[in-house]
């Protein structure tokens, strides 16, 4: 067990590699209750979220959800979030565990002047993720709700293994899958029922280690790595989440300027050619030895069998196909710039 954002969490139940493959080939069950869950309700709920999220919240119809980003005034990232539209005047916002306290304060600070009520339900509402090609079949055994026809990013009220809450077709693995929101008091029964229902299909419980390797391959950003308070969405290749023409929002002015001038840095993918694994913080240099940036995440990819990494480097320094050196324990190890994501997500759309 490791401490993560104030929660005691398993890095692995059996083995990161086993859990990773189980999720890609069958299904994985994740307890992700450590993430923050906030509710915004009231006549101004949409207008409020529109003000703190870079994405166009008005484009999220009831029963749908969307990825979003909260930015500081200078364009740096407060956090990346998921906004679920539950009812006309009611939204749920899911945020990173490590940022949950900061985000809660951020939302409250910006709520002045909006007719809304904010509720922090991170503790009383638990959250599981059931991900992988067998997730739909397994979940259908646990609920009468029509999860088979639930669209990508859709969310519905559902009773799962006797616990009432919501089920959404969202996740953080690059596979088809679901997130399940149920009362924390009933998480044990839902967890056990899900593992029983999925055993014959190869469902395995999955810890934080494989959660990271799965999101990494699928090109999904992780706060503190690809995004941070000093990294803006354009640098992180998340410009598509910033809707500058939707009206005013926190950070809009800075983001408009960044977009016009072009970001100074960009996120690239690297495949190691030499023997070595790039890890966060390792310097990236041209083959002539000029430092151009640093690795944000790196690991051996269980699915692809290669040592891969993301790095944030000077915007014009390299292109796909170019070679660079990653400084692994002060020694330059050759790598090639490759296209991202490393693993093409297999969402059911």
């Amino acid at each position, binding site marked *: *067990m490791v401490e993560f954002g104030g929660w005691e969490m398993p*890095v*692995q139940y059996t*083995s*990161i*590699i086993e859990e*990773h493959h189980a999720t890609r080939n069958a299904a994985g069950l994740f307890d992700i209750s450590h993430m923050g869950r906030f509710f915004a309700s009231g006549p101004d709920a949409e207008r409020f979220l529109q003000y703190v999220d870079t994405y166009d919240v008005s484009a999220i119809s009831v029963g749908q959800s969307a990825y979003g980003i909260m930015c500081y005034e200078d364009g740096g990232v407060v956090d990346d979030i998921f906004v679920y539209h539950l009812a006309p005047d009611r939204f749920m916002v899911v945020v990173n565990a490590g940022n949950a306290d900061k985000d809660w304060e951020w939302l409250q600070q910006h709520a002045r002047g909006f007719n809304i009520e904010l509720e922090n339900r991170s503790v009383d509402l638990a959250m599981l993720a059931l991900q992988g090609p067998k997730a739909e079949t397994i979940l259908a055994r646990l609920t009468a709700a029509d999860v088979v026809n639930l669209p990508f990013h859709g969310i519905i009220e559902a009773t799962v293994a006797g616990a009432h809450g919501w089920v959404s077709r969202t996740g953080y693995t690059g596979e088809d899958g679901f997130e399940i929101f149920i009362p924390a008091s009933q998480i044990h029964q839902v967890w056990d029922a899900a593992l029983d229902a999925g055993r014959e299909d190869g469902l395995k419980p999955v810890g934080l*280690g494989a959660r*990271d*390797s799965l999101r990494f391959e699928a090109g999904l950003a992780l706060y503190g790595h690809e995004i941070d308070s000093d990294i803006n969405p354009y640098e992180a290749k998340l410009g598509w989440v910033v809707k500058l023409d939707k009206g005013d929002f926190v950070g809009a002015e800075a983001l408009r300027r960044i977009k016009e001038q072009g970001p100074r840095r960009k996120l690239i993918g690297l495949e190691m050619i030499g023997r*070595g*694994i790039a*890890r966060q913080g390792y310097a990236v240099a041209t083959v002539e030895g000029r430092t151009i940036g640093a690795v944000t995440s790196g*690991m*051996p990819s*269980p699915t692809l069998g290669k*040592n891969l990494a993301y790095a944030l480097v000077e915007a014009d320094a390299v292109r796909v196909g170019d070679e660079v050196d990653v400084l692994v*324990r002060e020694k330059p190890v050759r790598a090639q710039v490759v296209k991202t994501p490393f693993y093409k997500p297999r969402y059911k759309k």
Partner: protein
Amino acid sequence: MAYQTPEGLQYAKTHEWVKIAGDEATMGITDYAQHALGDIVFVELPEVGKTFSQGDTIGVVESVKAASDIYAPVSGEVIAVNEALLDAPEILNQDPYERGWIVRLRLSAQPSGLMDAAAYEQHVAEEEAGH
């Protein structure tokens, strides 16, 4: 959780084992260490002929998640490395005390502060309780 801790070896606080015979020492990582690291996917070995002092970083093992230093449990010169680990690092998970030996050194000084099996088991129990 019970880990293998063979008698007859000496153990460092940093979870390396060493077997001393005359002026030669064979070292590796303990069963507890391989278990805590998880699937080992990469090993970096020192060059033969290099010398290390007890406590120096002598190699690196990497899991999917992280890189961890291996520390020399004794002082001496590297006389052999287990090159089989380069292509099959999983040997360290499967057999940390035999096929998974990492480095053989010629001792240049008597080590200090190493533990016997019983003391090391106690050390592991304390580390686990701290988690």
